[in-house]
């Protein structure tokens, strides 16, 4: 099918098109019916409960990460806020806790175990297996050498005083109980935790 357009008609159509698009530019376009101008950013993120890492108050936090948790989706923490169901903080957080996201993403954050050998000034990266085996080896050797079964009076004491243990602050009751059991079972006496802000 052929449409015959004269030169004059062509110019008229072009002018009409330019005029209507200019009207739209000047704000005469029909408005889109929007309910809101912002979308909620946490819809379908994965929510994980945890404790704030900083002080011994141990406020509850909710960590939101991208991805459904499906095997092809690699999760990335994208928001952290207070846990309203946590008995200690009931959703509130201090400025440090409110800024946890930047702690997670910090360039200076320790992401893997490192060791500084005696006499060395360099930190070298080791695997978790290396680190845990090494710690276990030191603990075993020191305990074998210095464990005291009986004191001078011949009384049973079963203690080990040459190594100490410092636990973290932001632990749950259950984690604290397990830590206590492990440490005391070894006979360790010097045991403390960072129970203060």
């Amino acid at each position, binding site marked *: 099918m052929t449409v015959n357009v004269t030169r004059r008609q062509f110019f008229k159509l072009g002018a009409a098109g330019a005029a209507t698009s200019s009207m739209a530019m000047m704000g005469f376009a029909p408005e889109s019916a929007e309910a809101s101008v912002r979308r909620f950013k946490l819809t379908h993120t994965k929510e994980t409960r945890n404790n704030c890492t900083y002080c011994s108050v141990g406020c509850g936090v909710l960590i939101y990460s991208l991805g459904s948790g499906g095997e092809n989706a690699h999760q990335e923490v994208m928001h952290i*806020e207070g846990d309203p169901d946590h008995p200690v903080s009931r959703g*509130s957080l201090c400025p440090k806790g*409110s800024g946890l996201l930047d702690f997670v993403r910090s360039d200076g954050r320790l992401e893997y175990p490192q060791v500084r050998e005696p006499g060395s000034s360099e930190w070298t990266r080791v695997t978790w297996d290396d680190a845990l085996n090494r710690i276990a080896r030191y603990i075993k050797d020191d305990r074998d050498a210095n464990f005291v079964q009986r004191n001078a009076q011949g009384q049973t004491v079963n203690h080990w005083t040459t190594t100490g243990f410092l636990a973290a602050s932001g632990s749950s009751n259950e984690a604290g109980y397990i830590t206590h059991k492990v440490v005391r079972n070894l006979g360790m006496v010097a045991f403390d935790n960072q129970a203060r802000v």
Partner: protein
Amino acid sequence: MVNSQNIVARSATTLPAPHVRDDVVEVAKLIDVSRCIGCKACQVACMEWNDLRDDVGECHGVYDNPMDLSAESWTVMRFNEVDVDAVHDNAEGDKELAWLIRKDGCMHCAEPGCLEACPAPGAIVKYANGIVDFDSNNCIGCGYCITGCPFDIPRISEKDSKSYKCTLCSDRVAVGLEPACVKACPTNCIEFGSKKDMLARAEKRVNDLQQRGYAHPGVYDPQGVGGTHVMYVLSHADQPGLYSGLPKDPRISPMVSAWKGVTKPIMSAILGITAFAGFFHFITKGPKEEPTDEEVFGDDEDHNSGDRDDGQDDGRHQHSHEEDRS
């Protein structure tokens, strides 16, 4: 909470907004200044939720950090050390030090001056629940919202020349959550709920402050802007200026109403009349026709003598140039 078609006002838009489904809960944030310890958890929570990271500033010798609102700091704590009348029953005229800390940010006025002043269609909207929000996609960066704001809140970004301010976390409130600052506050200084509940809560707090010896505690919900959806409980409500210059009776600047209320319709009318007059002239007189050279200059051969600098090169021009020089 916010449903379809719940934008009840849009800047620079004459088409009336749908008003049928407006029976939604009017929300409010109550900031009990007497309980604030200035920890700035609200500032951090605000930046975290809204994906803002302001530049790290410098210490200015005071607790204020940053020193002022910016396009990337939508709320700041303002610290004031002021002399006030002694709270407890001391001799008349006794003064004592008060450390007043106010969380500054958008007040979400019922009659927002920013929206009134804004010339960009849809850059500022007001929801049925009372929240006033900026849609930066439509912002043209003119800064009229700053002029229009009685509280000096919006800030133009140096990065993209668009205006920004607190949204009262409209995205969170829309799905039934409280704003990020409210959730974070560890001293219950910031509370959130229906405006009715918040007013009742404020009344309780005012009574409590009265019993503790404050002479003029009160709720800051200024009626000059139709009431606000961010309210303060002030220990010294008779002098709101103590709290970093909180205005006593804020109103939209008369410049805005003069411009938008009187000048704009008159100028629009003049513009319309001019266009109509032009059209009428065209219809009655027809298009203007370009006169021919003969009509303008007649048959005079020397009519080009005024063009002495046009550098044309034909013989007639050469002739007249020589005449002029002699």
